[in-house]
């Protein structure tokens, strides 16, 4: 229990600022295990925020608890890759060992066990989180040990270090991962370029001639990024130079600043490359952010770190502290007058939708993570209505590389419209899951060969919201011209049932829908129910029509990218793996979604009847 003194120091740390509400709640929970009504009441007064808003915001996030969840909160990662590695049986085993039902808190308040969306450990799964800490490579033996540790109430600090080991598993390095980056080198290289060839380097007349001296540096940075033709690595592939320029040109109202946000929410199942970048290339990422800040004229930055990577927080804070000491952050960075910038880390709480940039900003502001209405876009009205750029972790790392080596150099790597390299997170059915960096334009089959995949049936590129690629397409290329990707590359061999893959993804979307808009809130649940109906053997061609109808509504009417892409896996697998669906069409006639015989179960139980009339005969079940 934190005493109110504990709460006071948390409040002090966050300056009693209501925009920091979520971080304050996180720290309270980290000390107390949950957010009790007492704490809500205390914060209501201290922050002058109505409790309806506190509860409204906290209850949005899967990892914030307004009810006690047990001293040990165990969450099994439930991505399809975890399933393929047997997570369901492992979870059942642990539930049995600890005498607890999935989703419930044990009677003694000791433990609760349930599932969570992909935790980004797909190359070393099956994975779980215990009180927010990731445990990788879970197997039966480990489950037995974990049960023992929980029963003995061993504090996490006494659990074997080995459990929490997270490997980088870098299997192929290219320009970025092989760059042996020296902290500060990009900033200095940029500065040197400004000093010496800066004037010539810029090919845009207007600022070659007209810019005041102090702005030449930022312009040079923008110029290099544009020349490099860098496109965002978060999935959509928006041209980074245009985004930065728009932010730079956005008018500032009195008292406003420009803001740089690094999107490390990495929620797309099957993606874990940002985790590795933050683990082993954090300097590059922060340096990219600093360069961006320099380019757009920002003084404040945020790293939005997904809750699943909370364990990286201390490491990242350490890197930031060192960079401050080395004058790579703070005031007059590397001695450039006016180059002031610092970065704060905001930890997320289990909400995929917060990877969407406007939802992310809402969350940064201490609110529910619902995507905003756009326009206006974040580049003009972002964090607290200030001009804001949001970029992916990898985009910033690439920016650092570009500042170091020049846009011209970068542009010539990759393909015409996809400059540079792409870091892929490879998981699933292959010998060497892990991180692979390739120049853009790499063919799917090359990646499959590199990772030792055999008898591959399909690859899910860019996660559930991406593309299901079938064997006849393996010559296609990973690049914005052909198959764009945020980085996930999940491999499925011939033994896998592609219908179940799609069903897992549909469950993911239904679980992660923010609930803001009607089509996605209800539509993803309806779609999930239909996929479950097929799974349960109640499918008929009528359900196909329904699925198509929902797909259309989701795509056309949804508010954000989550809803738009929620049906992608279903559309793709229906198109490419139709037999997996046909096998589920057990009936020609319309068939109810629920099991009729089971619909009499409670009446049977209460009347103790088991006669013929107390059942729906099997043949009836199969009839109309």
């Amino acid at each position, binding site marked *: 229990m934190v005493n109110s003194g504990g709460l006071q120091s948390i409040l002090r740390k966050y300056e009693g600022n209501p925009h920091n509400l979520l971080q304050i709640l996180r720290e309270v929970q980290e000390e107390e295990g949950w957010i009790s009504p007492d704490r809500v009441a205390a914060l209501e007064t201290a922050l002058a925020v109505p409790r309806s808003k506190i509860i409204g915001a906290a209850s949005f996030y899967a990892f914030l608890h307004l009810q006690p969840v047990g001293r040990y909160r165990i969450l099994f990662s439930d991505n399809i890759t975890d399933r393929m590695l047997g997570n369901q049986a492992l979870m059942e085993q642990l539930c049995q060992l600890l005498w607890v039902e999935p989703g419930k808190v044990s009677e003694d308040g000791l433990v609760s066990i349930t599932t969570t969306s992909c935790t980004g450990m797909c190359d070393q799964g099956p994975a779980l989180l215990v009180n927010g800490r990731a445990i990788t490579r879970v197997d039966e033996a480990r489950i037995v040990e974990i049960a023992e540790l929980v029963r003995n109430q061993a504090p996490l600090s006494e659990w074997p270090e080995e459990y929490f080991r997270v490997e980088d598993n870098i299997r192929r390095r290219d320009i970025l991962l092989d760059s042996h980056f020296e902290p500060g080198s990009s900033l200095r290289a940029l500065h040197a370029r400004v000093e010496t060839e800066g004037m010539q380097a810029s090919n845009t007349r207007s600022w070659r001639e007209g810019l005041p001296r102090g702005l030449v540096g930022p312009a040079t940075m923008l110029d290099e990024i544009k020349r490099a033709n860098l496109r965002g690595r978060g999935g959509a592939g928006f041209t980074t130079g245009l985004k930065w320029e728009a932010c730079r040109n956005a008018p500032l109202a009195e008292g406003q600043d420009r803001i740089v946000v690094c999107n490390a929410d990495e929620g797309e199942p099957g993606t874990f490359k940002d985790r590795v970048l933050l683990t082993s290339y954090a300097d590059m990422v922060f340096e990219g952010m600093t360069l961006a800040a320099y380019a757009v004229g920002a003084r404040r930055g945020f790293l939005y770190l997904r809750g699943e990577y909370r364990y990286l927080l201390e490491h990242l804070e350490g890197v930031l502290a060192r960079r401050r000491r080395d004058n790579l952050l703070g005031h007059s960075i590397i001695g450039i007058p006016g180059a002031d910038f610092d970065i704060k880390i905001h930890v997320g709480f289990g909400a995929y939708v917060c990877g969407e940039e406007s939802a992310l900003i809402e969350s940064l502001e201490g609110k529910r993570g619902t995507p905003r209405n756009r326009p206006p876009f974040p580049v003009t009205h972002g964090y607290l209505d200030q001009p804001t750029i949001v970029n992916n972790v990898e985009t910033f790392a690439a920016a650092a590389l570009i500042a170091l080596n020049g846009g011209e150099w970068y542009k010539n790597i990759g393909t015409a419209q996809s400059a540079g390299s792409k870091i892929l997170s490879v998981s699933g059915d292959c010998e060497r899951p892990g991180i692979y960096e390739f120049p853009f334009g790499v063919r799917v089959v090359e990646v499959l060969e590199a990772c030792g995949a055999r008898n591959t049936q399909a690859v899910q590129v860019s996660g559930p919201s991406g593309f299901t690629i079938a064997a006849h397409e393996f010559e296609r290329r990973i690049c914005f011209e052909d198959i764009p990707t945020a980085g996930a590359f999940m491999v499925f061999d011939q033994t896998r049932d592609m219908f179940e893959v799609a069903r897992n993804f549909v469950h993911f979307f239904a679980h992660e829908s923010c609930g803001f808009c009607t089509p996605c809130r209800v539509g993803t649940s309806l779609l999930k129910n239909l996929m479950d109906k097929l799974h349960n053997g109640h499918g008929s061609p*009528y359900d196909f029509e329904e699925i198509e109808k929902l797909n259309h509504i989701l795509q056309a009417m949804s508010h954000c990218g989550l809803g738009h892409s929620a049906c992608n896996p279903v559309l793709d697998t229906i198109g490419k793996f139709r037999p997996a669906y046909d096998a589920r069409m057990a009936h020609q006639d319309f068939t109810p979604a629920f099991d009729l015989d*089971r619909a009499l179960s409670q009446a049977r139980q*209460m009347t103790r*009847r088991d006669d013929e*009339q*107390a059942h729906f005969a099997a043949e009836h079940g199969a009839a109309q």
Partner: protein
Amino acid sequence: MEVTEKKKLKVATTSLAGCFGCHMSFLDIDERLFDLLERVEFDRSPITDIKEVGVCDIGLIEGGLCNAENVHVLREFRKQCKVLIALGACAVNGGLPAQRNHLPLTDILSEVYLSSPGLGNGLIPSDPELPLPLNQVHPIHEVVKVDVFIPGCPPSGDAIWKVLTDLLSGKAPSLGHGLIHYD
């Protein structure tokens, strides 16, 4: 004469878990019933013996699905009808009976038979003749394919008339303002 007789459409009605209000409303189409009779032939109400219905062109069904018997009747009826019409709120969304759906049936049964005072011997009837209640009440479209819906509790005679005449003239039935209502 022969020919027109043959062309008459056969219409049947039945009731599941409903209040018969919709049947009453059906009779409300009043004198137009005679017009209708020129063009359709009514089958007996099949509640007593569904097998007797025989194949018919249009079947109107009132009430939702509360118990096993409702399901049997509905399925037989569906098999016999070319066009199946869900008539009234209960058939369309379960209606009043479905307001029990958020409660577990086990709780309802024990509340009614075991714990509430005054109701008999404190036993839940288990006579095999009695159809067992379903865990939840379902609208009929959740169990069979339904072709046409006429909402309302009950739908007005005018609404029913409009749908039937639309169907008889081969049009997709539609109800405009004033005819379509859910209360």
